[in-house]
């Protein structure tokens, strides 16, 4: 009887929970609209911060006839007053028109779409590996605080945190790829690999992945390690851990079952919120290894001052980050029932 009642209250509670969760998700979705509006303003302002007009900036150091400049200015609407320009641009964005690249002579959406899978591949692998390594080392370091393991791994994390990733990338490329020839120098695939057997092509592709991912893993592991370690230290001091130990549970169960769950919460949210930071870190590595992903595209468009493309990529990237943040928030709400929906 009491068991049945308990069950009843539980279903009731979960119904309330899912209701509030639904309203929470809907509210967060609606909130994306003003946020997106703000994002578009920030991007627009940043692009127009520089004095002079962007079309002239596009052609710095390149001979171009004034008629062409005038035509492009007119096509992009730069001959209009600034607020009209913004509204026109916003209108195009709302119709999912992210602009047209003058360098590639193709719509920006297509260009970005081709590059996203490669960036995702790099980021997912690097992020997955560093998450596993960081959690493993972080837990080990926190459980044996001030031990040799802790001191050494903390020191390593500090070094990994401070080392400029592009410098390590250059050194690795020079010595491991060019000098020793262990890894391919750059790109995604060796030329002609399209015609090789699928197994061979996959092996070749993985070989190309090793250096860029390892360098990303180095930095992110260091970053995540510090978070895992401090979160674990916090959790280990809490009463429920003392209770678990007092009950006579084995230390391994206390740590990996009781403590780790609460540590994973901040770790996963940190990862979710740092998508933007991770993307930016990957950009330089993509550029160095000629990995034709989103980041490399940012850098090359900025270098060529491909102004419509830059605006387009920025908005698409911003949207990706906003959606990733929303997913993180919802995942957090799902995992942690204590969260308040406000």
């Amino acid at each position: 009887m009491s068991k049945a009642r308990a069950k009843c209250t539980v279903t009731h509670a979960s119904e309330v929970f899912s209701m509030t969760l639904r309203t929470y998700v809907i509210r967060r979705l609606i909130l994306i609209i003003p946020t997106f509006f703000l994002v578009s303003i920030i991007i627009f302002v940043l692009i127009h911060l520089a004095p002079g007009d962007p079309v002239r900036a596009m052609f710095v150091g390149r001979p171009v006839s004034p008629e062409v400049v005038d035509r492009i200015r007119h096509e992009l609407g730069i001959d209009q007053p600034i607020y009209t320009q913004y509204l026109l641009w916003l209108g195009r964005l709302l119709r999912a028109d992210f602009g047209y690249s003058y360098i590639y002579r193709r719509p920006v959406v297509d260009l970005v779409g081709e590059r996203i899978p490669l960036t995702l591949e790099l980021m997912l692998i690097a992020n997955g590996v560093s998450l596993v390594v960081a959690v493993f080392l972080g837990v080990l370091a926190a459980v044996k605080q001030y031990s040799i393991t802790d001191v050494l791994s903390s020191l390593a994390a500090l070094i990994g945190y401070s080392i400029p990733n592009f410098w390590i990338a250059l050194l690795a490329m020079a010595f491991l790829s060019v000098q020793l020839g262990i890894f391919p120098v750059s790109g995604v695939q060796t030329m002609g690999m399209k015609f090789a057997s699928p197994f061979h092509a996959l092996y070749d592709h993985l070989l190309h992945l090793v250096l860029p991912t390892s360098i990303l893993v180095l930095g992110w592991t260091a970053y995540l390690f510090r978070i895992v370690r401090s979160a674990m230290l916090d959790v280990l001091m809490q009463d429920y851990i003392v209770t678990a130990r007092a009950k006579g549970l084995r230390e391994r169960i206390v740590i990996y079952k009781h403590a780790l769950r609460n540590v994973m919460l901040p770790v996963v949210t940190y990862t979710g919120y740092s998508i933007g930071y991770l993307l930016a870190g990957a950009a330089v590595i993509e550029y160095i290894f000629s990995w034709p992903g989103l980041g490399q595209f940012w850098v090359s468009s900025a270098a060529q001052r491909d102004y419509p493309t830059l605006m387009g990529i920025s908005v698409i990237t911003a949207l990706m980050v906003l959606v990733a943040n929303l997913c993180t928030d919802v995942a957090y709400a799902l995992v942690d029932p204590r969260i308040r929906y406000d």
Partner: protein
Amino acid sequence: MVSRSQEKSALARAKREVHKPSRATRLFITWRKLRKSVLAVIGFGIVLTVAVGSLLAPIIAPYDIQWSGASRRPPSMENFFGTDNRGRDMLSLVIYGARISLYVGLGAVLIEIFFGLTIGMIAGYFGGLIDEILMRISDVVLTLPQLMLLLLAVSMFRVRGLHVIVIVMGALGWPLMARVVRSEFLSLRETTYVEAAKSVGATSWRIIIRHILPNILSTIVVLATMDIPWYIFYEATLTFLGFGDPSSPSWGVLLQQGYLYTMSSWWIITFPGLALFLTSLGFNLFGDGLRNALDVKVRE
């Protein structure tokens, strides 16, 4: 309106009761705590070395940056770090590069503090709609990839120079500072000593400047110290990607110009990168130590 002297005496009474140590003593206590941590001392040592090195660059550097000898000469007694592809002395370039990095770090951080303080205090003081709008903006700037925003802003400038990078970085770096200032401001506003100051008739400005600001100071210092290596790193990244002034000896520029010669002359990219790494390690160690010594709770 209560006179300033009355306010002073009321505060002096309050101070006698709590025995708050003087500013010099507090500084000494902080230093003593800092000294206990070996890593923090190492960090401080590195930061000090970089600072002294960059201040005394013309005296310390063995050659002028205009000097040029045989190109790509390996490290030797004449050129400790070798020479680069244009025959310039790498050691001198790296020393002069420290000047740029330090200028970038401090310059951007000062701009960040200015914006962060102003915006944080406005948001905390006025509250309501203004607070809401400012915090939404700071949220958005925080979530967007910093490097993307920097590339966006810097690439459109026709002049490629250091000042543009510093100003843009500082102007984009304020959100976290503003958030922290705002939340500290909100919690300090409710404290009894602010209430006491208010009750003796101190003006809002006086409360902000004399009573609230000194208490936020340690948080600001810690936050700023921890941001300096990021600015140095971003400047090096941007200049490495080619958005800097190619004639300056910035470490990022040196890396960009050297990396084509990595194969035949390892020293060209090794030393500027090492300098960048050590400087950022120094600031990170020092910032961590300072955070622990001042017992400030900011992001990990």
